[in-house]
């Protein structure tokens, strides 16, 4: 479940296409505003993209779902008013009801309270890992794309190797020896998730650097680092950010799998993965579904929403790509 590329097959091509589409959209938008002052509402490309995004049903539902999850995280604990770490050994593994909406676990802790406190870790790990991977991938992709030649092929070779290594297995080996920790988890997930963003960034750079304004900048004597920063990076960032949604989902799933194996977030801190860890025995699976069903469904809901939002953003930025 921890492949670095969910949609790698189409993402690189469509990203390049999107970059071109975006640039042409920019110029047509400028022309239309210059020519037609009489138009009632001149729409900017980003407004158009926003409208396209909102017209996508899956994306709209996902935004609402994710907003509800975040609301539940922020407000939920205060409404519920139960300490997620409070143990009550006399009320071990109680079924839902009796003051505990989702029942209690082995140590008599409230499952709903732990579910709400577990979200924080899951989402934090997901965002931190994805953000680091995006930053690293963007830098490597932009450098490879604009340098070209040997630097490019060497960097892409490294990218291929990293792409083929599942971070899950690396964390199993490293975490198994060094001991589990959240920092290690985030670092290693990011260290093996950057290739997708690097490839997208590179393909965008390859198409943008042939455009006239970049050539003009080069002819005017602008130095390469400045061109990268001023002209290439702004074209790359939207595309890469969109692909980041998938990375967030991948990271959330990796965290869950690793905490499930006991190599991620260590109890008593609750995470969705380690809530499922305590449900490894057949008796728990067969007779206490309240212990493992809610965290599992929460993981699915979160990562489906994130992926749908990512897809929606990609479609919105890339109206020409037919899928």
């Amino acid at each position, binding site marked *: *479940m921890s492949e670095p590329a*969910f949609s790698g097959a189409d993402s690189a091509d469509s990203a390049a296409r999107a970059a071109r589409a975006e640039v042409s959209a920019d110029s047509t938008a400028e022309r239309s505003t210059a020519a037609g002052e009489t138009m009632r509402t001149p729409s900017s490309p980003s407004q158009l993209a926003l409208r396209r995004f909102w017209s996508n049903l899956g994306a709209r539902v996902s935004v609402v779902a994710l907003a509800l999850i975040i609301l539940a995280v922020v407000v939920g604990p205060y409404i519920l008013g139960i300490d997620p770490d409070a143990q009550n050994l006399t009320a071990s593994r109680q079924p839902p009801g009796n003051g505990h909406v989702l029942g209690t676990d082995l140590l008599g802790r409230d499952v709903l309270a732990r579910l709400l406190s577990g979200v924080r870790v899951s989402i934090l790990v997901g965002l931190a890992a994805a953000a680091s991977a995006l930053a690293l991938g963007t830098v490597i992709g932009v450098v490879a794309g604009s340098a070209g030649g040997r630097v490019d092929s060497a960097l892409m070779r490294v990218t291929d190797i990293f792409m083929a290594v*599942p971070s899950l297995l690396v964390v199993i*080996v490293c975490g198994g020896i060094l001991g589990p920790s959240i920092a290690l988890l985030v670092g290693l997930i990011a260290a093996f998730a950057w290739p997708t963003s690097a490839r997208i960034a590179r393909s965008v750079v390859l198409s943008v650097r042939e455009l006239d304004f970049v050539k003009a900048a080069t002819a005017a004597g602008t130095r390469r680092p400045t061109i990268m920063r001023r002209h290439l990076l702004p074209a790359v960032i939207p595309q890469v950010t969109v692909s980041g949604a998938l990375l967030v989902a991948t990271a959330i799933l990796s965290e869950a799998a690793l905490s499930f*194996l006991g190599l991620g977030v260590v109890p008593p801190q609750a995470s969705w993965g380690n809530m499922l860890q305590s449900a*490894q025995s057949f008796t728990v699976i*067969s007779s206490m579904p309240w212990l493992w069903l809610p965290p599992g469904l929460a993981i699915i809901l979160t990562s489906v929403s994130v*992926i749908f939002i990512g897809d929606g953003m990609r479609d919105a930025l890339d109206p020409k790509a037919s*899928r």
Partner: protein
Amino acid sequence: MLRYVVTRFITMLLVLFVVSAALFSLSHAAPGGPLASLVPPDMVGDSGPLIEAKTKEFGLDQPLPVQYLRWVSHIAVGDLGTSFQFNRSVASLMLERIAPTLELMGLGLVIGTLLALFLGVVQASRKGSVVDYGIGTVSLVLMSTPAFFLGMVAIYILSARFGLLPSSQMSSPGDGSTTDLLRHLVLPVSVLAIVHCAVMTRYVRVGLLEELSSDYVRTALAQGATRRQARRKGLRNTLGPLVTVVMISVPALLGGAVVLEAVFSWPGMGSLVLAAIEFRDYPIILAFGMIVALLVVLSNFAADILVSVLDPRVRLQ
């Protein structure tokens, strides 16, 4: 071709060298130092002459590069050290446990890929229809489902509620019949195949759609070929890139297998490693790291070779 194979082989050795160096430094960074990865944990606490003797025995008083060379030369001839838990050679333990894991992975890979081919073709030939969106959405949801959770749901429904299939191990004690073995295979293999298929279906669909919109397919249709014939032509050309994706996904499949072995108590390499982690049995963990690296390198290599065999346009240089 030969020249390509040789250069690739050298790159492979280079990558394995880097990985082995990383694993070596990892074993030195382990809590308790390098000795912890050579001596059972209960002995590390023992101070005094024993530790000194062990340090000498394993050459830990020598400079790091010398130690590394020694370690690597042992690995190169298949000596992976001795497991603390079982007091047996790691190589023989791994050999014993690798077969069940490969069985799980192989069956999952074949079934999952075939299923993905079928579903992807169905999606591409009915692009934009309810069937297309339906399969797409289901595969997206399955992609967002942790493999172990899918396994738990399968156990809950098929083993606990309806008692149709066994939920753990490879066979029932005292029953080694083929039917019994097959019944134990069904759940873990299906879950792994479904997880693999969910990812692959997307690639098949996108690849086939791209081919179907190309000129040669349009020409074929203009000359009176049926949609079916055109699809067959297009599908053949999507297989090349697909083989690459499938081969590269093999290491990820191992990741899935490790997690599922924990859920289904499958006695493979994954359960061996997970038990080793609990026991801090470092030689097994390090050996597993080496096997993962080998698998990654080999599946990449196989992908390149297979593509050049399947697609005459690809020239290896």
